[in-house]
């Protein structure tokens, strides 16, 4: 019994050795195939980096022009000290992402922020997903909370008309919310962004604000028009910030990918050369030992 087991192990060990040898033989070809494919991947990631660098430069230039629009709209909410109505708990969350991936964690961090909010309370929060990425992430668990989804965004820089179409669609959903927030990636520098929120309020919340009287000659008509406009303006601003941080983070991601591919190429070349040398040495040994056996 014991002997049999001992036999089995030696057979197994031989098999393993044979397999390793076979693999060692085959690797020369397979390594060169792999080397070629990694080189191609590196070329792709490098060119993607160049493309996103150009897009980033444009997005940043446009973002600088848009910043005052967003600041102006934000100031109004801060100066008038508007808060959500306590008796209307309904909230609206607008997720600003895009259709395109390969840009690090920028879409995931927006989605995670929203998921945390929804974990707390998934009855009174509705979500508007801008961009396929956030929709794809939130759809599975919180599909019922999505009321609007926008796509075809991210290929070209967002325009104000995009933002106003979305704002119009939000106003036409007939969803009664007292407060809301726009979740987007705020661009800080080429290498960093942070996921931030912008507040949005309904007409009822604004008219109930305690410090609204610091603004002169307001009537409901004016406030309503202004709120409609400021929703579009805030969405536009958030879209621009999001587009800029997306491009910058894609740039970094692609840079890292090319660097990793470069490391991989180095290692693969080394193993390739080593294997080739081993094959040559083995053949030489075979020839020499064959010759000396004569």
């Amino acid at each position: 019994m014991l002997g049999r087991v001992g036999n089995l192990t030696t057979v197994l060990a031989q098999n393993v050795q044979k397999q390793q040898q076979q693999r060692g033989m085959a690797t020369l070809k397979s390594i060169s195939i792999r080397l070629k494919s990694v080189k191609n991947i590196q070329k792709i990631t490098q060119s993607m980096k160049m493309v996103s660098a150009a897009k980033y430069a444009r997005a940043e230039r446009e973002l600088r022009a848009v910043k005052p629009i967003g600041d102006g709209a934000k100031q109004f909410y801060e100066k008038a000290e508007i808060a959500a109505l306590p008796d209307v708990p309904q909230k609206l969350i607008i997720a600003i992402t895009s259709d395109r991936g390969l840009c690090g964690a920028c879409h995931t961090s927006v989605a995670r922020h929203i998921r945390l909010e929804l974990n707390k309370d998934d009855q009174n929060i509705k979500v508007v997903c801008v961009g396929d990425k956030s929709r794809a992430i939130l759809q599975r668990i919180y599909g019922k909370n999505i009321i609007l989804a926008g796509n075809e965004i991210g290929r070209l820089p967002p325009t104000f008309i995009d933002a106003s179409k979305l704002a119009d669609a939000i106003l036409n959903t007939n969803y009664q919310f007292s407060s809301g927030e726009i979740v987007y990636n705020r661009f800080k520098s080429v290498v960093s962004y942070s996921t931030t929120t912008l507040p949005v309020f309904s007409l009822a919340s604004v008219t109930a604000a305690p410090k609204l009287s610091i603004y002169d000659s307001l009537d409901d008509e004016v406030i309503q028009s202004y709120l409609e406009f400021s929703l579009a303006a805030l969405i536009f601003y958030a879209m621009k910030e999001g587009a800029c941080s997306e491009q910058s983070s894609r740039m970094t991601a692609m840079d890292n990918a090319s660097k990793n591919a470069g490391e991989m190429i180095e290692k693969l070349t080394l193993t390739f050369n080593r294997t080739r040398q081993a094959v040559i040495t083995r053949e030489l040994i075979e020839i020499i030992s064959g010759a000396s056996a004569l």
Partner: protein
Amino acid sequence: MTAWRQAGLNYINYSTIAARLLRQALKPEARAEAAKRAEVHIKVTKWENGKPIKTVQGKNENC
């Protein structure tokens, strides 16, 4: 109540129409540049119960 609100438009529709008219009134050399900013790419879809329902058509689709 203003006339455009009575006609069922909100301020967003009103201002996009105004902006479109302004773009059309520009001189030809400036108009080409402005037309680039007037493109719409986004497609908005209504969702209910975790399913897309239909694409939302704006009141002024080609604005």
